[in-house]
């Protein structure tokens, strides 16, 4: 039963991808080749990949450097900086882009986009690397030192190797994120695949062109995803072999501590200060416009209902899959789990596009309803929810239920008194995460929202695209507030806030 429900969930998650493949094939091979072998597609591919490469490299440098300074040195205010380095996750890229644009009029092009994306996504490297540095066995470094290696040799030969899986995973996540990003590149007018797909469909009504571009983007995504899976598998080999956790000795920075301090402060100012300043300056104007509050309230209400239905559908699909993955892990569940992640890595613009075609031709009753949008959210956020459910399920191991049954309680009573009390909080947190993530989703919402239904994200988008920065500010502020909650959850779970030097 669980298996059937899980398979259904995966089928739903893969619906957009399958449909995209079908429609592209329908267009005919010659047509596809015609669309593909143009200078424009080559330029798009080059620019998308270059952007991904530049941002990833910058994020690795920034993320690893910050993580090392925060976890391994006696940097003044390191706990403060640890939180600051995670906070950019609360700023959706389109809001960061909007903030920069509203401060520097006419900002556009490749390098500004790279700057904004780097500032928004270096936490994806910082968080896993900081966790790896905290978790890494200091005994290995001590052994290296005792065998006559200098501090720097030990750092390159032992420490960097310990955090390599975390760095690779974080870097690939950044690359996937950049490839699928729509908001920042669109606002900063950088032609990448996502923007070209949207423009081709929304302005040019060029369906085949959009489909072909989307397929190429999917191919690039799958390529990156395969690399990610490989590093993950390799990462297992770096697992700790028991032993007691002991905090590593901290490096004395000496004279370098204040330049390091200034550098981190500078990064934080660019990543957080600029959006904060810009929003603060425009907010008063934006709120004082006549009718502004009513418009914001309507958009917030729409965001709320759309995200709620999306979260409900997502959790419905995630429950069987998450329980199956946690309780009966085998080859089949691994495949199901991976397939869901494939759908997750797909850009929202691709999901939106293929669901539009799906709605028009296959499921017309769903077209222009919020249920089609809910389906898009389910596809995008299913892995988030599956992870939460699987994590929650491990809170109630089978051994606990066996004990309860041996004490004379029937299966239903055990479910009510043991399993549910232990599992529900985790599932609730997962649902909240999906709900909040849905609130700030932009491209799929933009493509799939029923006509006339504007959410916070789409209102912000519309206002920004006509240069009405003051009007956009209230939406941006509200969205940042909404994103702050899941970010805080992530930071508090990462252990960065723990009292350090314990044990």
């Amino acid at each position, binding site marked *: 039963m669980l298996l059937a429900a899980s398979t259904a969930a995966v089928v739903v998650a893969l619906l957009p991808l399958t449909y995209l493949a079908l429609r592209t094939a329908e267009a005919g091979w010659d047509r596809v080749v015609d669309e593909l072998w143009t200078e424009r597609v080559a330029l798009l591919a080059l620019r998308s990949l270059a952007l991904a490469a530049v941002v990833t490299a910058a994020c690795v440098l920034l993320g690893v450097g910050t993580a090392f300074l925060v976890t391994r040195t006696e940097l003044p205010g390191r706990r403060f900086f640890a939180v600051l380095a995670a906070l950019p996750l609360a700023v959706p890229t389109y809001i960061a882009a909007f903030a920069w644009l509203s401060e520097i009029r006419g900002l556009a092009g490749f390098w500004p986009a790279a700057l904004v994306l780097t500032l928004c996504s270096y936490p994806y490297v910082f968080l896993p690397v900081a966790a790896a540095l905290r978790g890494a066995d200091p005994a290995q470094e001590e052994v290296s030192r005792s065998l006559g290696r200098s501090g720097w040799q030990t750092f390159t030969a032992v420490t960097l190797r310990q955090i390599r899986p975390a760095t690779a995973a974080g870097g690939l996540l950044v690359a996937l994120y950049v490839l699928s990003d729509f908001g920042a590149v669109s606002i900063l007018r950088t032609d990448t695949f996502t923007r070209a797909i949207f423009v081709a469909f929304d302005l040019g009504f060029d369906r085949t062109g959009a489909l072909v571009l989307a397929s190429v983007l999917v191919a690039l995504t799958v390529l990156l995803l395969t690399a990610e899976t490989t590093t993950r598998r390799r990462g297992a080999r770096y697992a700790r072999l028991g032993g007691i956790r002991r905090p590593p000795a901290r490096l004395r920075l000496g004279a370098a501590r204040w330049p390091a301090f200034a550098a981190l402060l500078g990064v934080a100012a660019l990543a957080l200060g600029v959006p904060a300043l810009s929003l603060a300056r425009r907010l008063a104007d934006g709120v004082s416009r006549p009718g502004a509050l009513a418009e914001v309230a309507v958009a917030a209400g729409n965001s709320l209902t759309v995200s709620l239905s999306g979260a409900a559908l997502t959790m419905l699909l995630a429950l069987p899959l998450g329980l199956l993955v946690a309780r009966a892990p085998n080859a089949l569940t691994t495949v199901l789990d991976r397939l869901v992640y494939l759908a997750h890595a797909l850009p929202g613009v691709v999901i939106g596009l293929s669901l539009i075609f799906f709605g028009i031709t296959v499921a017309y009753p769903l077209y222009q309803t919020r249920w089609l949008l809910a389906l898009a959210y389910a596809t995008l956020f299913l892995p988030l929810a599956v992870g939460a459910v699987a994590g929650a399920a491990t809170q109630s191991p089978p051994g606990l239920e*066996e004990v*309860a*049954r*041996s004490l004379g309680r029937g299966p239903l009573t055990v479910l009510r008194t043991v399993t549910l009390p232990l599992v529900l909080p985790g599932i609730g947190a997962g649902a909240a995460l999906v709900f909040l993530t849905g609130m700030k989703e932009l491209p799929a919402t933009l493509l799939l929202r029923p006509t006339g239904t504007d959410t916070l994200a789409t209102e912000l988008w519309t206002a920004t695209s006509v240069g009405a920065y003051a009007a956009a500010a209230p939406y941006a502020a509200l969205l940042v507030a909404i994103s702050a909650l899941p970010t805080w959850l992530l930071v508090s779970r990462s252990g960065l806030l723990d009292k350090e030097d314990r044990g």
Partner: protein
Amino acid sequence: MSEVALTGVVRRYGAVTALAGVDLTVPSGLLTAVLGPSGCGKTTLLRCLAGFERLDDGEIHIDGVPIAGSGRHLPAHRRRIAVVPQEGALFPHLSVADNVGYGLGRAARRGDRIEEVLTLVGLAGLGHRMPHQLSGGQQQRVAVARALAPRPSVVLLDEPFSALDAGLRAGLRHDVREALRADGATGVLVTHDQGEALSVADRVVVLRAGRVVQAGTPTAVYREPADEWVAGFVGDAVLLPAVVLDGGTARTCLGDVPVADSAPAGPVTILVRPEQVRLGTGPGTVAATVLRHDFHGHDALVGLRLADGTRVTARILDGGPTVPVGAEVGVTVEGTARVFPTTATSTLISV
């Protein structure tokens, strides 16, 4: 207080046979230890008893009432068999008192049974604590109290002390034994630690490769092991080739040793425990060279080589004469030896 009987119990996992026909009786009101090396099927046996696994063949009865086998499978919650798992598995969201009261009815929960069993395990007054506020040993005590509270027919203990450190283990072992006895509970303790089985159990069942190889009191299993493998598994063993002469005597390289059984004359293998091997000088002793001396505090194990190359081990209590490595000593055997028919592999085993 109930007697459990297993007859011909078989459990397979695919091609692997975990239990290959187990016959076993657990007497009422006593603690029976199921002893065996890892992978011998003892945990499977326990899970079959508890009702977490179905039998492939055989039957289980409690007080003559069938609970499993021949197409019958009484679900775990109707068997009145409580388990104490290896890691305790306390419900993390319930207080100690609520954990202990979990298996009790509404009325009994308001009574004093919870405090009564908590007192039995030495945790009186800690009912309001949460599991994470307890030490590992205390958590195990709560798990035992929880299992005892509903007065089950049988309490199953699955290596409940193995996760604790050695010092804590001995004390907890004793206290749990006393708690079970004070409550009149029937217990089954699964363990791979022969010291644990011999010291706390009323009866020991030795399991090997999914079969019972011996069942009896701890003394009987130690003194009269069923075969050479059991002899080596439940304690240190010196196994020597010997020839049984008439009149209950066996001729060995350690001289003539009395044998307990009226063994048929001819070549055999005899078992001597290291504590039966005595060092000394004088008539009747066999010359030996000291190879090693492992000091354990209360006693020491001395490795010896006889003139013909045979190696034997002697256990000497502290306070006896010191024997430096390389010294020449005399060796005798005290008491009677156990006789096993000679098999091809049993020429020289010294554990």
